[in-house]
């Protein structure tokens, strides 16, 4: 039976391994046909910024193509591509404003804690993944 999982993320991109773990949980849940709703709070609103771009790695001597470094928005776009109808993503609007993070990939939308509360009420479980 399809369940619905709500997650709160807080870490900015490239800061911890936490986001990786959270996205793996989301991917695995959707792979089993469950629905996932992600509320990105604080620094996590930067995860989906459209202008993220891969770069070469001068330490390894690799070009952009050779380094093949997926950005965080690439990971999230891949989740949308694989499970688009099961994934909903809201970026906390006030957090976006204070970071200048309004330019996102297609998919995430702007919202607030009220949206999170509506999600929580209709979810089978809610998982808070804070920053430290």
């Amino acid at each position, binding site marked *: 039976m399809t369940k619905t999982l709500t997650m709160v993320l807080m870490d900015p991109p490239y800061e911890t391994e936490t986001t990786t773990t959270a996205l793996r949980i989301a991917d695995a849940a959707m792979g089993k046909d469950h629905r996932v709703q992600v509320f990105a*709070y*604080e620094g996590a609103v930067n995860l989906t910024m459209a202008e993220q771009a891969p770069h070469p790695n001068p330490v390894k001597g690799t070009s952009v193509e050779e380094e093949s470094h997926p950005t965080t928005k690439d990971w999230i776009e891949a989740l949308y591509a694989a499970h688009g109808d099961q994934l909903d993503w809201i970026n906390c609007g006030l957090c976006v404003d204070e970071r200048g993070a309004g330019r996102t990939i297609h998919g995430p939308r702007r919202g607030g804690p*009220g949206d999170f*509360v509506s999600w929580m009420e209709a979810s089978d479980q*809610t998982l*808070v993944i*804070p*920053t*430290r």
Partner: protein
Amino acid sequence: MTSVLSVVSTGYRATIEEQDDTILWFTAMCSSAGVDVSVLLEGNAVNYLVTGHDVGGLRFGELEVEHPPVLDRDVADLVAKGVKIHYIREDLDALGVAEDRLLDGVTPVKRAELPVLFSNHGQIWRW
């Protein structure tokens, strides 16, 4: 609706830059949206209960921070809204803070009592 315990374990995280505590803020928003939510202050966050917070005077060049965070006021506002505030007694003791310095209407909990507190809530959000 399920009852929620919101655990603030990251006291003073980003409070200067944000002008408030991001978790107390989120908890207040959830309360206003109808969630039956209580708060547990853990670690350094127990110090939010000490009255008389004042970090005024911060400025960079000509730019003054006019509304610095006032964390005891923010907790008192939650109390006034009917949000129950707990704090871990041992964490207050570790800071050497006497209970008579705390704002009114807050409830100490010993660590050994936490499992009962948790079991009285449908969800635990530990931030």
